[in-house]
């Protein structure tokens, strides 16, 4: 049985994030869209937990990870805290001709540059 995300330490949360990112890459490369979407929701919950703990910075080192999928998702989720670095990573990934990671990065760049990108920062709860 999976533990609740709130009970996980930051390291465990990061490990879970990396696992999900790798599996999403596998799903995407094999056109397993339904499985990808399910894992995407799980990844969203993990990223929301990072935001809730004000620890989204912990994902930023992932932009230098050796695996292109972890680089991609780290860049996609840290765009608001380090836009220049993450865009450079997306540009680098967009040049990958094989698999779907290049396609996803090109799409992400298109979305950012056409000004239709949506903020990933969850709404803050009202104080008091």
């Amino acid at each position, binding site marked *: 049985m999976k533990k609740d995300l709130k009970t996980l330490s930051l390291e465990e949360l990061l490990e879970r994030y990396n*696992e999900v990112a*790798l*599996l999403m*890459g*596998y799903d*995407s490369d094999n*056109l397993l*869209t339904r499985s*990808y*979407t399910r894992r*995407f*929701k799980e990844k*969203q919950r993990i990223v929301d937990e990072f935001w809730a703990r004000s620890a989204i910075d912990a994902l930023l080192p992932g932009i230098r*990870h*050796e*695996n*292109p*999928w972890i680089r991609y*998702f780290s860049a*996609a*989720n840290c*765009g608001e805290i380090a836009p220049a670095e993450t865009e450079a990573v997306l540009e680098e990934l967009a040049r990958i001709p094989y698999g*779907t990671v290049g*396609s*996803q990065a*090109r*799409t*992400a760049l*298109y*979305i*950012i540059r056409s000004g*239709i*990108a*949506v*903020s*990933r920062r969850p709404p803050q709860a009202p104080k008091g």
Partner: protein
Amino acid sequence: MHVHTQGVSRERPDFARSAERCWIDGDLIRLSHWPVGGIRPGGRAGPIPWLIDLSVLEEAMREVYGRDFRLGDRAALLQLAANALAAGDRRRAAEIADAVAFPPPEYKSRFHDAGLRYLRWGPAHSRGNPRIDVEAWLERKAWERKYDPDQPRVPRGHPDGGQWTNGPGAGGDDENPGEELLTDEEQQEVGRLAERARRILADAGDPDSLVVLAAGGEKPPKLPRSKWGALAFFAEFLGRMMVQRAFEGRNSPVWFDVIDWFNAINTMMPEFESYLTPPKEWEELVADRDYRDFDSYNDFLGVYGSAGAFHDWHHLVEQKSGFSEREINNTENIIRVPRGRHWQITSFMATPHDHLGGLSWRQWLRGKSIEEHRRVGMMAARDVGVLK
């Protein structure tokens, strides 16, 4: 992560023996996104000894290629950025490279014992065969040391015109071309480096774990294919099939299965071929260059028929996007695409994106104008390689 494989985990993928490779390959790709032998030497829990020629770093090569020559998949060639390679461990890389440049005899023999008979150094495009014997490489190194571009030549007009004359770097015999050129100082340096090489090899421990990196050029070198490769693959395939049948308790002759497989492959070949079709111009993809619209998709099919074997008609603006039939079923919106690419486009439209707030393109486009739909549809067709 819990992994259901035979002793293979993310931390120790190299525990797999070559016989198990066929079983664990898929799991390893799932874990690391690299095939066996293509795992990068960096970013592991423990250090992995590796060798690199310093010239890889000095010649400002953009990319290097290499693979584990003992266990690795023949087709798996590791691609790395040279600067990334050097960033973490430049000093150690320098030490090892120096040592490799002047190896003591036992160094070479350990390479041979470990089965690492082939090293490849130098730009990928410089040779057709990417594998160079260690000794041939050493000879080349020695020759480079001997070669002096300033050495005088016999002038034109003389019977020996163009030949080298005696001069610096011309000495030495062919058996040991490099050694006679070394000054005393260099001889001492060679001795020092040889000692360092011995130490590094002792530190490296098991020579099987050495990862040998090769220098690359603009594109990856082509690995030579063994003429027995196909036979070995077939034998392995047959063996696996027989083991599987034994487990399942089937009694029919094994050749029935083989025939089934060949039939299946024959049936699928046109699909593979359609998938490999290169991107085409717009005019080649449309059913008709003149504009025609229809009241339904069936009417369209009634006029233009099927898209052909393993090809589909694809709607740039999707069928259930809320526009009128004539806006969707017309010759400017329907193109002929290979079936595999069509699946890719469908996946493209259904994949959620972080930058769209977790929506897929299909969800994001709801309520948008038909121009917006068409722009995204064209982008998808270009991205998957259907449209130029």
